[in-house]
């Protein structure tokens, strides 16, 4: 097999497919190392739009030097200056302008963070406008079309030097003691929030971090937007689960939701319960679960702590979506189950113990050692142990046969040790139950072995019968040939040859010569 030379990556044609020579493939898939970082293409960067008249920025006097009467006016002018966008993909373009804007942004941040009385009503629309202009953009498609959030390095935002300051400004603006939600809500409206949420798909984790905190503050302060925000987050998640399976900001949104769930009033509204069942639980089916599993599990557990009656929905939901082929996910699910069991109420535990421990038994018998280990480790948890002990009569029969069988069959020595620990724990909980189960297990085993033996005997009998029949047939055929030959030779002792020629099968005729086999044919 000859290796073909790799074509150079061409920055001009974004649609050229990167052909990978077969030698570089493992199991038919190109190895990750082959995905080279491509040269940054300056395709129409969504961040930088050529403005019709490129404005020259002139440095303005410093805010701290401005007399009080002119402060707000200067503030406004600086905000307007910051509405000018710069191209960061070109490192050397317009350095002077970039620096002016950066300095201005810095000042604005300082001012909002430290001074009082800066935020007056007229500034609100200007501030929001500046923020909108800077941050709202269509996110460029990923540089790496096969971006795997778990493995690959994310593409960072080029204009971060300015963008970071804009976000910082926004955050300080929201957190300022002078901030008036009633004024802000005219400008931070549903359209604004929707665009904000779309930015969560950014590949740059720093941007998402800011967005997370900002949205958290917005949700906290602008009560009128809360229902809308929740609804839009639901839409994002549902689209993620059922349509695209791509969204970079799931973990951040879940973190925000965690703090919201934590604050739910009791009794829990139906809307929230439905969110749990229709969004949070199906979220577990995502392929990239490992990225946001910690946050997701936290949300789930918070729900349980708020209202114990949702426990059954959670557990049954998880069992329904239990991973069948991905063992990495299975280990995550088991971790989540342990966290859930840590806070479960005994009355709820009883409702789900049967299906749950059936699944746990299945995990124990998994050939993947990490899955089996994780499942067995539940017995090291004091609280879970106390739950098991209270319901020993139900649980032990469910796992007993699996434990015994796996202890004899499993390849991994650590697993065998853990199983011993579990069996010993059960033995000490209730000896009699354990002995009874051992006895019935042995009886079952004997029955099974007996059935196997009978089956083997049956087949052996059939094979022997087959052999005997073959023997008979060959003998009969031989005898027939002999008689034929004798008949042709004119042997006086043989019966007529025509009679013999007709019968192909040896029939048990009363005439002694024709039947070859001495014993009965059947």
């Amino acid at each position, binding site marked *: 097999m000859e290796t073909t030379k790799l074509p150079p990556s061409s920055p001009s044609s974004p649609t050229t497919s990167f052909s990978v020579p077969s030698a570089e493939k493992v199991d038919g898939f190109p190895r990750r190392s082959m995905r080279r970082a491509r040269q940054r293409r300056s395709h129409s960067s969504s961040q930088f739009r050529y403005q019709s008249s490129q404005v020259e920025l002139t440095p303005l006097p410093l805010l701290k030097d401005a007399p009080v009467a002119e402060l707000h006016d200067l503030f406004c002018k600086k905000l307007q200056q910051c509405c000018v966008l710069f191209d960061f993909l070109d490192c050397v373009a317009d350095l002077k302008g970039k620096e002016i804007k950066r300095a201005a942004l810095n000042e604005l941040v300082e001012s909002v963070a430290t001074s009082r009385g800066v935020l007056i009503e007229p500034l609100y629309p200007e501030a929001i406008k500046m923020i909108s202009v800077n941050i709202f953009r269509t996110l460029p498609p990923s540089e790496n079309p096969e971006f795997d959030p778990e493995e690959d390095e994310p593409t960072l935002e080029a204009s971060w030097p300015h963008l970071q300051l804009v976000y910082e400004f926004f955050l300080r603006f929201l957190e300022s003691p002078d901030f008036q939600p009633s004024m802000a809500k005219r400008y931070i409206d549903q359209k604004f929030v929707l665009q904000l949420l779309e930015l969560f798909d950014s590949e740059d984790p720093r941007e998402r971090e800011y967005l997370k905190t900002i949205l958290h503050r917005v949700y906290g302060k602008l009560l009128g937007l809360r229902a809308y925000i929740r609804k839009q987050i639901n839409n994002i998640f549902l689209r993620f689960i059922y349509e695209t399976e791509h969204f970079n900001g799931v973990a951040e949104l879940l973190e925000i939701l965690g703090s919201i769930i934590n604050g739910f009033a009791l009794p829990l509204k139906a*809307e929230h319960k439905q969110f749990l069942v229709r969004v949070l639980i199906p979220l577990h089916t995502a392929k990239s679960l490992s990225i946001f599993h910690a946050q997701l599990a936290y949300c789930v557990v918070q729900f349980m702590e708020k209202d114990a009656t949702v426990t059954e929905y959670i557990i049954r939901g998880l069992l329904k979506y239990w991973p069948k082929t991905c063992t990495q996910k299975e280990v995550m699910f088991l971790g989540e189950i342990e966290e859930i069991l840590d806070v479960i109420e005994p009355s709820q535990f009883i409702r789900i113990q049967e299906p749950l421990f059936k699944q746990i038994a299945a995990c124990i018998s998994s050939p993947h050692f990490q899955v089996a*280990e994780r499942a067995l480790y539940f017995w090291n948890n004091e609280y879970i142990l106390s739950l098991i002990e209270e319901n020993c009569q139900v649980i032990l029969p469910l796992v007993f046969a699996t434990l015994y069988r796996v202890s004899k069959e499993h390849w991994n020595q650590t697993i065998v040790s853990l199983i011993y620990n579990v069996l010993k724990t059960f*033995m000490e909980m209730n000896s009699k139950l354990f002995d009874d189960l051992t006895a019935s297990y042995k009886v079952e085993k004997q029955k099974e072995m007996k059935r196997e033996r009978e089956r083997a005997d049956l087949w052996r009998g059939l094979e022997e019968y087959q052999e005997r029949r073959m023997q008979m047939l060959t003998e009969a055929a031989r005898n027939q040939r002999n008689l034929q030959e004798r008949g042709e030779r004119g042997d006086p002792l043989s019966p007529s040859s025509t009679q013999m020629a007709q019968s192909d099968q040896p029939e048990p005729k009363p005439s002694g010569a024709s039947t070859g086999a001495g014993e009965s044919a059947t």
Partner: protein
Amino acid sequence: MDAVRLMKELRVNYEQEVDFLPREAGLDLIVSAQQSGGQITARSRDVTVEDLWSLTSFFGYSTQSFVQAVSLLDRFLAMMRVQPKHLSCVSLSCLHLAARVTEEECDLTPADELIRIGQCRFTASDLGRMEKIVTEKLRFKSKAVTALTFLQLYHQITLTHATYRKETLSLEKLEAQLKACLCRIAFSKAKPSVLALALLRQEMKSLQSEDMLEISFHIQRHLKIPDAELQLWSEWVARRLSDYASPKCSKPNHRKLQWIVSRRTAQNLHSHRSVPELPTIPEGCWDESESEDSGEDVMSSGDESLCSSLGSDAEGPFFPLHLRRQYLAA
């Protein structure tokens, strides 16, 4: 004819059983020992025997191996002053010895595995040396006469006299009960023939079979077992068995087992316990009235829809129409 042979065998064993009784003085010493005294106590002996049972059960050894091991252990402990730290080594070597004379070669677990599963700290060569010591001191050659010997004989005798009751008098059940008794040092003082008979009678009483009890009287008379002795042990047995059979599950309270997991699993074990950074946002009851769009967006359906939601996820105004269709199609 069979019955006669069995009775003869019974006699023979009865005469031999004295040789296999642990020294009473030695047993008393153990029973009276204090926890803090640095000696083997009744509790530690009982815990060790329970460990032996766990191992027997786990490796699929027969009850005979277990009973032989306990016999060796009790005799050794009654004869020698053993330090508590050597107790597990002694007990495991007894089990290994017993298994070697009882089990098939292919079913024998190697010493290394025995030590590993038993979570002991000594080596296989330590075990070997201890086995030699035990063999020497007890002049161990072959199987001892134990309560199990008698149980099996009694069982056979009962069956020859009352064949129609074959299924009800279960030898397995009797063996399990014997095991429960042997886990308490108090029963080590009993003569095996008496202990076995007490167990037998207990089971027969629970089956409420007068015929079988007749047979047990017959055995008692044959062996000339005094009434008082049998009565005493019957009481002990009854008490022990009622403890054993209680449906109450007890909290496992022995020394901590070692839970060793692989490195990868250990790394993942507590990675989720992260303190959330964002402060809680309390939900106000005035949220809905303040909301500009309280009408359409908020779910109004009550708990009924929640019950069916796991089966039919695509109902209700909450679920967007285009996704609902796709989900149903998927």
